[in-house]
């Protein structure tokens, strides 16, 4: 690890100011991705601006048809929140599958969504539920937010403050964990919302994506069997030593069917 300056921000405004005045500074909360990156000397930030304990980023509340989750809420807190369990049980279930107990007690929802790892679980829920990512500057719809491999709509120095999940009629998540890492080899989040069915896929492609052909098929018949034969291009999937494109495409269909069956 290279030498750096650790600063525990006292307010969101102070954190934003630090980031603005230090172009090489990095914002940090749970550090579940950033710290391993630093340890391997793959990053050399001038400052680590810790926003993990900011009161402005904490809290879970139900508000007018939405569940609002502060960016610094840890996975374990989301997984065990009575509010989330009642309104969107699929979201608390998803959070309970992330990493291991150590990760779930340190990693935050804001950190996961900001990092946008192509195999992270949260992006599937954010996109699948059509959530809104709220930052210290603006509100970004999930459909505009995720832009592929580790890429998001966030600008330099922009900090996620909370995520607003509209409460769906029904939702379910099915995950096939990577045998080694436990990340999603493929995870599919299916939500029946006021505007129709949304199907979001993580782990299989270069970034979280909506399987629109499946949404259309489920719109006509919200049953697992409706997904048989629905178009899915294996060429769009990732391929590595663990899985071929064809295997990942198969997992997308199987996990989507299992999520629908759970609705």
């Amino acid at each position, binding site marked *: 690890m290279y030498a750096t300056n650790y600063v525990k921000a006292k307010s969101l405004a102070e954190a934003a100011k630090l980031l603005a005045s230090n172009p090489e500074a990095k914002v940090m909360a749970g550090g579940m991705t950033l710290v391993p990156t630093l340890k391997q000397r793959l990053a050399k930030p001038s400052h680590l601006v810790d926003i993990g304990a900011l009161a402005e980023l904490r809290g879970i509340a139900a508000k007018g048809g939405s569940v609002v989750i502060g960016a610094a809420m840890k996975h374990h807190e989301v997984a065990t929140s009575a509010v989330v369990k009642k309104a969107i049980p699929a979201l608390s279930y998803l959070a309970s599958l992330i990493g291991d107990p150590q990760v779930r007690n340190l990693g935050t929802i804001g950190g996961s969504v900001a990092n946008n790892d192509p195999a992270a679980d949260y992006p599937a829920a954010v996109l699948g539920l059509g959530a809104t990512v709220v930052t210290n500057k603006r509100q970004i719809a999930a459909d505009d937010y995720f832009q592929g491999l580790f890429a998001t709509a966030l600008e330099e120095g922009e900090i996620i403050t909370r995520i607003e999940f509209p409460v769906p009629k029904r939702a379910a998540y099915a995950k*096939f964990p990577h*045998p*080694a*890492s436990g*990340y999603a080899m493929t995870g599919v989040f299916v939500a029946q919302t006021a505007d129709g069915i949304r199907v979001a896929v993580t782990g299989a492609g270069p970034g979280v994506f909506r399987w629109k052909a499946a949404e259309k098929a489920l719109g006509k018949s919200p049953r697992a069997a409706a997904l048989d034969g629905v178009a899915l291009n294996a060429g769009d999937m990732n391929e*590595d*030593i*663990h*899985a*071929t494109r064809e*295997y990942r495409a*198969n*997992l997308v269909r*199987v996990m989507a069917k299992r999520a629908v069956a759970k609705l």
Partner: protein
Amino acid sequence: VVLTNTTPVSSYRGAGRPDIAYVVERLVSQAAAELKIDAAELRQRNFIPPEAFPYKTPTGSTYEYADLPGLLDKALKLADWKGFAKRRALSERKGRLRGLGISTVIENTGAGQAPKDAVELELDAHGTVVVYTVSKAQGHSHETTLAMIVADALGIPLDNVEVRQCAPGKQHLIGGHTGGSRTTVGAGSVCHLAALKLIEQGRALAALELGVEPSQVEYAKGVFRSSESRRTIRLGDLAKKGSVSVLAEGKFGSTFPNGCHIVEVDIDPETGSTDIASYSTVDDCGRVINHMVVEGQLHGGIVQGAGQILGEQIAYDPDTGQTLTASFMDYYMPRAGLLRGIHAEERATPSKVSPLGVKGMGESGCTASLPALANAVMDALRPIGVEHLDMPMTPARIWNAVRAARKGGRN
């Protein structure tokens, strides 16, 4: 090869045993499948019968004794071998493929290249006995097993025995290193002999103190006494003027633990993932010093084998030589949840190779689990037309095999 950037290859738990057992046991199960004979029955028909022991193998080893049919019989009952068809039908109804795998293995343990095993005991005035050994535990629980052997021979509380391994100043001790499942057979047996030697030496010292002949001194539970004297002398009393040391050595040959492992897997053909539904073992490792230590060794070995069968591999980029499995993000490590329970039972036939009657067992788990698990996966997949799979049998590899078989092609 002069230079390489690949991982150096070295011995690994079982070294030489799991690999051979894997080939032999897979072939036997393949033969059973092709001959349409029950895999347990084919083994039973070909066992060395109990009356043929001691049995000299064509390669020169002599198996002391093994009750292979008795062991198999106990394992078949433990695993409810006969009830498998019913369980397979239940899995089928859920769209899953169930497989039953078995291995019956015997392996060479103990012995080793060192000319002898030496152990030193040091008794202090508190009656504490320190055991110095060359064999060094890396999680093998020597601290418990060797201490129990000494405490048992001396009839003193376990708390009064302390094991120090590879201690500074004890370089004169010679002995086999930890490996080849040999510590209890070798160093353990010498611990026993050393304790007996301490009693004999103590008897002579006590006789002097009591003014009687050594033959008139009896020893039990840390106390020397004689019918000729009202006085008693505690073990620690012998070291009042300075600690008493005893050096013992011995050389013991090979012991042949054996076992039968039976495992059931439940495969999800849609994802290729394998669930270990049950795991039963019956092992003969001779006399058991500590059942918990033996079970711990067995569990570790079994899970180690499961890792190799279901996921572990080191992969390199063929173009650049870059290691692709350089961290646990990519390298499959078996986790506790992989195996939810092991029904482990013993069927001991004591060995006469050493005074303890023990047989080595540190590598029994992986020796037997590798082929048993692979055989279970193959048993699940054979009915749909999969003819062969190599380890690691990852979900992706199993799914590919299932898909190829269902398409009617070869895999």
